[in-house]
């Protein structure tokens, strides 16, 4: 009994239990749910939103939020593919500029929130529109196609039966979680989100912590957008549309507080997994397509509720 109580006390257990239950339910209805191809497809599908979610977890723990991530991902994909295709730039240079655009967007978000005092919700909503508009200005709404073979081959490669994008995502999860939990910089992020004033008095440069978290999120959004561009072999102007809600949902389901100061990257990973398991599981089990949308909402709320129960039990 004590053993289970200890297990239940692990922060991610509240999300892991519903994840396990859903997986077993879907598997018992249709065994093909856990076939290697199916699992690989689920993991690949959560990769791009997942990469951004790593940055968003850091940002939300520090007390911020970024709604512009989807649009920034789309803009960076279009900027880099436009430079490579229309301007004939080398692949490396195109990718570097794409990444820089993401970092600059994050920096601007951070400066607007921290220096100008504009609420994060409004500042990043503004950036969402700006980035989406610039995206369409650049490509005129048309997909940029084809992209260089070098990038196409990278996008199509299947290391370990998955994709390079997924490998990068897993490395980011491990690195992001370790840095957040085990390094001084990670503790500064928790301290800033937990109580900004106390953190400042303790000598932490809270402004820089938050700005750097915005830059990290912007940079990862750029990376996700460009990786999807490589995988699709086209700079699609629609890349990233609606991602912001998926990213925030995964982070919150994963146990990160909307008010900052609490959360883990591992939790976010499990949050992403639970969303993907539910989405794919409902298709595999043959649930009516309209009911699937209802079920996704209900199951997400249930998962968070189970996590809240766990926290209360712990107290």
């Amino acid at each position: 009994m004590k053993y289970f109580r200890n297990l239940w006390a692990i922060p991610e257990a509240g999300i892991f239990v519903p994840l396990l239950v859903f997986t077993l339910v879907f598997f018992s209805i249709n065994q093909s749910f856990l076939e290697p191809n199916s699992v690989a497809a689920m993991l690949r599908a959560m990769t791009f939103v997942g990469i951004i979610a790593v940055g968003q977890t850091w940002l939300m723990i520090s007390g911020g939020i970024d709604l512009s991530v989807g649009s920034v991902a789309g803009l960076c994909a279009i900027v880099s593919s436009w430079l490579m295709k229309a301007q004939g730039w080398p692949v490396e240079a195109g990718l570097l500029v794409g990444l820089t655009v993401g970092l600059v967007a994050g920096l601007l978000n951070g400066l607007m929130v921290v220096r100008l005092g504009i609420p994060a919700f409004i500042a990043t909503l503004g950036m969402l529109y700006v980035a989406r508009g610039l995206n369409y200005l650049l490509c005129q709404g048309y997909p940029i196609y084809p992209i260089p073979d070098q990038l196409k081959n990278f996008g199509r490669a299947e290391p370990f039966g998955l994709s390079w994008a997924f490998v990068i995502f897993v490395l980011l999860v491990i690195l992001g979680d370790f840095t957040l939990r085990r390094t001084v910089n990670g503790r500064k992020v928790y301290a800033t989100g937990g109580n900004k004033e106390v953190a400042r008095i303790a000598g932490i440069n809270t402004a820089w912590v938050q700005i750097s978290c915005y830059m990290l999120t912007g940079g990862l959004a750029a990376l996700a957008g460009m990786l999807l561009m490589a995988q699709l072999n086209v700079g699609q102007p629609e890349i990233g549309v609606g991602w912001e809600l998926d990213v925030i949902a995964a982070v919150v389901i994963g146990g990160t507080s909307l008010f900052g100061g609490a959360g883990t990257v591992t939790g976010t990973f499990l949050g992403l997994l639970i969303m993907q398991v539910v989405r794919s599981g409902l298709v595999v089990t043959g649930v009516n397509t309209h009911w699937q949308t209802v079920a996704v909402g209900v199951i997400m709320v249930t998962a968070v509720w189970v996590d809240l129960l766990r926290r209360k039990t712990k107290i």
Partner: protein
Amino acid sequence: MKKTNTLLILLSCICAAAFVGGCGKQTSGTSTPGVKLKKFYWVQPLKGHPVHQMTQIAFTEGCRKLGYQAEIIGVDNDDISATIALAEQAVAKGDAAGMAVWTGNPSWNSFIEKTGKKGLPIMLPHFPAEEGSIPGASGVISCDPAEYAREAAREIGKAIGGKGTVAITQGSFNSTENLVSEVFAKTLQDLYPAVKVLRPQEEGFDAPRAISRAVSILQANPDIVAALSTTGNGAITWAGAQRESGRKVVAVAMDYTRVNLDLVRDGSVYALIGQPLWDESYGAAELLDQLVRGQKISWWTKLPAPFITKDNVGPYLALLDKVEAAIKR
């Protein structure tokens, strides 16, 4: 202090005068008698969408050839009320000789009725509608979705030898895509009773999620031999799903974008249904011109939607070259 107030009042007067001057003359929303209006409006939500861009260029080309000015109005998302507001502003300017409205949504009906009553010709491209169902509209120019759905059923049935399971995915559930799915399923079952047609699934517009959903459909139904997607992104979706699942199906999707045509050429996708996007948009300008010149037109100008396979992608690539050249111009 008095001097400052006087200066402020003077400055305000100058600003007000500049504002009134800048706004130009107020118009009542109807044309001025004796002045020949030479502008056609193209109203369309999601105006940045690649397929929509093509239609806008076609309409602009049509207007240019006929000696009209073309103005494209619309918003970047699919917000109907915001698009209607823009259309109302355009009508209020009073310089419209005609308008083409890209919609299959009944929310537009009251605007079309109100504007039609003012005597402005309104063409509805792309979305078929029953005659008399949209008061104020002058006519419709489009292909017949029911007809291309039937053709897709015939072609897919032939390609799979009349047996197996067929999946259907839709970008979203709207009147046109629902109709295509229904007619396709019915025709396929009538022609090939041994074929099982699955209920349509929503693939959405986010590529990774759409591919993952298509893979799940393939995993859940090991006997799937073909798939129809009723949306333009469906080619990428089903090509990706085949690659990820290691399965091969006869995939058919919509719209001849360059990416889609290349997927047909390399065999990832069996065929595309070529909605006559260029012809219906260019044709809308021609029909508006006929209406302006007092000619009668039939309610529905029906256009064919060819089935594009590996053998006939050439003309569509040439058409895309033309569109891209127009964009550069």
